[in-house]
């Protein structure tokens, strides 16, 4: 009896979330992938199959921009993995020390850049690094390294790395917090057992704690990956849609924005924009799949 009646309340509870999510997220996602297969010919939308992707990967003008953006994006990601995550882990390791005073204060202060918007962060650093204002050169001068100063954001060879480091500065709080949480959940008995066996200090970090927090490091890596391949705001705020100097800071997000909306003399092209979105989707999907099937399932998890 109970089973045969339709339980309307379940539908009522689910409906709003499912409707909004489907209409504004899932449907546009697939529609974007579909639009990538069309093109505009004589004011009409015609199906062109994979032509847009062929243009994107093989046409000299497009492919040069695409591979440039993709390569830059990988560099952006590598810097985050090599700088942001180790610093985050190191800060978390220090903060989780049981006898440390003012830990809460340090934690809150270090997290502040993470809550600021990209616009603020981008402009603030642009001003600080600006040769006109001279804060960065005069600070380097104070430690006798003035000769090292260069207008980092304006030089092709440094601009992308500088922006990646600014982004690291902004987001270091996230790995710090997640690793901190993971370190706190390690039971005291395990560490004490290690101490009895003579494993203390740094050794206890490398031999006991690090293996136990590997799953959290995996999560941080995939979050960093998705975030980086989806990045746009910081580059746009600091360098504009042209991702200067000479496209040296162009990443997939800015490339898609320029293509979709147009800039200067080039008209916007939603279909090529969709094709780039499709490529981004594929890259993110591959990354998430590598994580889910390649890393997460093989990772040893310890029952705590």
């Amino acid at each position: 009896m109970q089973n045969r009646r339709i339980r309307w309340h379940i539908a009522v509870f689910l409906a709003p979330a499912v409707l909004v999510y489907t209409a504004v997220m899932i449907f546009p996602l697939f529609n974007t992938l579909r639009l990538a297969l069309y093109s505009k010919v004589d004011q009409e939308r015609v199906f062109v199959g994979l032509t847009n992707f062929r243009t994107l990967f093989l046409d000299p003008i497009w492919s040069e921009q695409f591979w440039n953006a993709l390569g830059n994006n990988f560099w952006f990601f590598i810097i985050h993995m090599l700088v942001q995550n180790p610093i985050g882990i190191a800060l978390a390791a220090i903060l989780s020390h049981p006898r440390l005073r003012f830990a809460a204060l340090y934690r809150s202060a270090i997290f502040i850049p993470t809550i600021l918007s990209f616009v603020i962060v981008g402009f603030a650093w642009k001003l600080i690094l600006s040769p006109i204002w001279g804060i960065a050169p005069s600070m380097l001068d104070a430690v006798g390294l003035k000769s090292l100063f260069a207008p980092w954001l304006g030089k092709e060879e440094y601009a992308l790395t500088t922006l990646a480091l600014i982004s690291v500065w902004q987001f270091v709080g996230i790995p710090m917090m997640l690793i901190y949480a993971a370190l706190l959940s390690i039971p005291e008995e395990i560490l004490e057992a290690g101490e009895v066996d003579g494993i203390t200090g740094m050794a206890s970090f490398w031999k006991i704690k690090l293996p136990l927090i590997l799953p959290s490091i995996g999560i941080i890596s995939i979050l960093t990956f998705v975030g980086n391949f989806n990045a746009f705001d910081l580059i746009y705020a600091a360098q504009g849609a042209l991702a200067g100097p000479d496209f040296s800071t162009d990443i997939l997000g800015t490339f898609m924005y320029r293509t979709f909306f147009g800039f200067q003399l080039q008209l916007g092209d939603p279909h090529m924009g969709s094709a780039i979105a499709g490529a981004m989707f594929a890259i993110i999907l591959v990354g998430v799949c590598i994580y889910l099937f390649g890393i997460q399932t093989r990772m040893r998890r310890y029952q705590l």
Partner: protein
Amino acid sequence: MNKARTNPFNTAMMHGALILYVLIALFPVFVILINSFKTRKAIFREPLALPDAESFSLIGYQTVMKQGDFFLYFQNSMIVTVVTLFFVLMFGAMAAFALSEYRFKGNMLMGLYLALGIMIPIRIGTVAILELMVATGLVNSLWALILVYTAQGLPLAVFILSEFMRQVSDDLKNAGRIDGLSEYTIFFRLVLPLVRPAMATVAVFNMIPIWNDLWFPLILAPSEETKTLTLGSQVFIGQFVTDWNAVLSALSMAILPVLILYVIFSRQLIRGITSGAVK
């Protein structure tokens, strides 16, 4: 306690490292804030000095007040954030309740479907979202932003809230059922109040990315009446690039509301992250 863990030299090193990093983290914010209160001359002559009686000036703030409609931008950001949070929490909690409370065909599948959005960024669908908003006439309205952010926030909200709702005791709900309460009353009167801490966590998680987003305001609602604070300050700074007083003041005005919110909610936020809600 073992000696290695309380060694004074180690403690000093740890504090040293943390203080150094705190300085790196706060220095840019500090420089922007102090210089926004100085005259143009003082900004360039002594950028690291605090404003004193001679160098103090509010000229930048005056320009910002005259030229930019920052109160409107602030109001827009506020409306978008608050309304979105309401929808995310309301719809998210309802769906989480359905998934965690009832056994029905397709429960697992529905859960997976809703969880898809945690890993796939909504920005990928921007081209079609813009077409959708143009077709429905919502472009250049705050509703476009509210809908997009709600869709973006729901997957994680459903995921976190359903974890918490599984912990609500069945006896309580069944007692309600025996007393003749409807499923809706059980949800609103019994379950919702019990998961309030989890809802606060979800709210804080969603608040920062929505408030700071530049992409969707730029694409879906760039008109003067619907600019959010983030987009408004971006455009304003772009126009006043050479007026350093105005730029620094505009940056400070964009920093302050977030900083105040952070001071109010930082405990909630940090507790939320460290309680493992995102694991």
